């Protein structure tokens, strides 16, 4: 789509002053936000193995997607009327994780991708998206977790250095359903993810976990929104990030909205950042809005700190050299969340990547 065509659409082009965009370097979005991008339908997301029975993956006409005021998502929807839809059929329990990957290299155009994951009632599955290679991609992902269903969704951003990834991951979680997500962002030039959860039925729960590690020049933003629209839903958010190197910049926003009808809500969100060098910047903004007092609990915490000298001293006093001690502390910091992936190959790969980034950034010396 050309810039001219996009002007016909009634989409607000972010200027950078808007609350949702105030941290994002718009110039580095390859025109995804203002309609100037040369867009394509690459369908880069592909299943890694044959899909088990009870699971299908098709390209279909888009039906109702959740409304959003995110300009990039609006442009993706205006661009494409088809979606790639993954369906886990009713009552299916899929034992093995379903792996998808993007691994191509194309920096000439911007892929606008529309994806849907539909977990039908009482089905259970783990879906893993492995993003590597170098792409410029705007991703509109709609997740529906049907009544009593259970989805673990893992999205790995192990991009190459030139990638740009802007995505909205919106999960609608029905009655008694469980949605768990793990977001890992360790590569790319700019990654901006909007994990959002709408509770659509009582008894539903969501756990949003994430880790990110930004080194020199990288910008990683995770902007979370959990909407407690219904009574008796539970949410947990825990994101951990590390930064090292000049102009490494991360943004974590945790918006939790407890509406008047959401009695019995139980929510807690946490963001911890480890600043491993000078010149890096971690923004962390938890935000809780509460319209009813009839709740089980609501809380948040946010910390940003440096290496703990006492921990390093303890490890080194046992003969462990400074670099290894730092590696241990950083790995330890991330282990709590990475170990939840429950896939040894992926966990080892992520930890190795973190070791590499740490070494590259020189953050283990001195």
């Amino acid at each position, binding site marked *: 789509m050309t810039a001219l065509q996009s002007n016909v659409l009634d989409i607000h082009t972010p200027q950078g002053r808007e609350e949702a965009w105030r941290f994002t370097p718009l110039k580095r979005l390859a025109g995804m936000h203002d309609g100037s991008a040369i867009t394509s339908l690459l369908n880069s997301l592909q299943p890694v193995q044959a899909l088990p029975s009870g699971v299908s993956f098709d390209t279909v006409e888009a039906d109702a997607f959740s409304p959003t005021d995110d300009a990039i998502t609006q442009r993706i929807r205006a661009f494409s009327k088809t979606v790639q839809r993954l369906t886990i059929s009713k009552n299916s329990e899929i034992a093995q994780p379903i792996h998808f990957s993007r691994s191509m290299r194309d920096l000439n155009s911007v892929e606008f991708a529309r994806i849907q994951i539909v977990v039908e009632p009482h089905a259970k599955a783990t879906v893993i998206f492995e993003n590597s290679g170098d792409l410029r991609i705007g991703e509109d992902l709609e997740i529906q977790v049907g009544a009593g269903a259970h989805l673990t969704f893992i999205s790995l951003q192990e991009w190459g250095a030139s990638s740009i990834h802007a995505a909205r991951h919106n999960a609608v979680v029905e009655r008694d359903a469980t949605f768990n997500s793990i977001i890992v962002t360790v590569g790319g030039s700019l990654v901006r993810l909007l994990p959002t959860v709408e509770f659509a039925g009582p008894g539903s729960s969501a756990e949003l976990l994430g880790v990110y590690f930004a080194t020199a020049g990288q910008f990683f933003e995770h902007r979370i929104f959990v909407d407690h629209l219904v009574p008796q839903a539970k949410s947990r958010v825990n994101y951990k990030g590390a930064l090292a190197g000049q102009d490494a910049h991360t943004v974590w926003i945790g918006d939790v909205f407890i509406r008047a009808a959401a009695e019995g809500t139980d929510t807690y969100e946490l963001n911890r950042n480890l600043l491993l060098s000078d010149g890096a910047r971690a923004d962390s903004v938890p935000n809780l809005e509460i319209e009813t007092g009839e709740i089980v609990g609501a809380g948040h915490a946010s910390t940003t700190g440096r290496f*703990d*000298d*006492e*921990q390093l*001293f*303890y*490890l*080194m*006093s*046992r*003969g*462990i*050299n*400074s670099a*290894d*001690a730092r590696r*241990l*502390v950083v*790995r*330890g*910091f*991330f*282990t*709590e969340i990475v170990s939840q992936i429950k896939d040894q190959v992926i966990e080892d790969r992520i930890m190795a990547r973190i070791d590499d980034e740490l070494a590259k950034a020189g953050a283990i010396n001195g």
Partner: protein
Amino acid sequence: MSTLEIRGLKVSVTTENGDVEILKGVDLTIKSGETHAIMGPNGSGKSTLAYSIAGHPKYTITGGTVTLDGADVLEMSVDERAKAGLFLAMQYPVEVPGVSVSNFLRTAATALRGEAPKLREWVGEVKGAMEALKMDPSFASRNVNEGFSGGEKKRHEIMQLELLKPKIAILDETDSGLDVDALRVVSEGVNRAKENSNVGVLLITHYTRILKYIKPDFVHVFANGKIVEEGGPELADKLEAQGYEEYVNA
């Protein structure tokens, strides 16, 4: 046979109100197989001495020397001191989130021995050390000191003493916070280390009860940043009866 020699050690810490001298000239020599007890009032600088020998970055050495078999300890980084054969069992062991005890111990043993211990033998070694200190095997998979009770942290320190086999070990109030059974178990651990590897021990304590299990060859009274009196085990009994008043006001 190893010798740790501390001569005229002066140490200060930086505070909001400038540098404060804590150690004011400490002289002490510890040889393999010897056990030295240091007793002294709160705040007299005992932990400062222990940390300074181990190389904690908070402390600034302003004078004196520390050598281990002639090698300049003060020139060494913290890990080099451990590799040279020094060990500090800390008064307040530090929690290291996300790092399991087994990973920590193996990393430390690999660093100190210069090669990774053979997995099968190592597992047996750790299991034996844990059993000897009556620690539940589940501790191996827990994070270092995280959620450990005070007594469990101290057992974990002594377990490291047994596994890492230093030449000279400084035990900073290892007996504090131990119940009577734990005190015996931990003391037996120290005595095993003395027997098996002839470790020289500097034992910092407030109580004579641990000295019933771990017999000191020398007792030093520490006050106002230096050693003010030295004697044999009988000095500990005198301190217990009379306190530190005569030294503090001296």
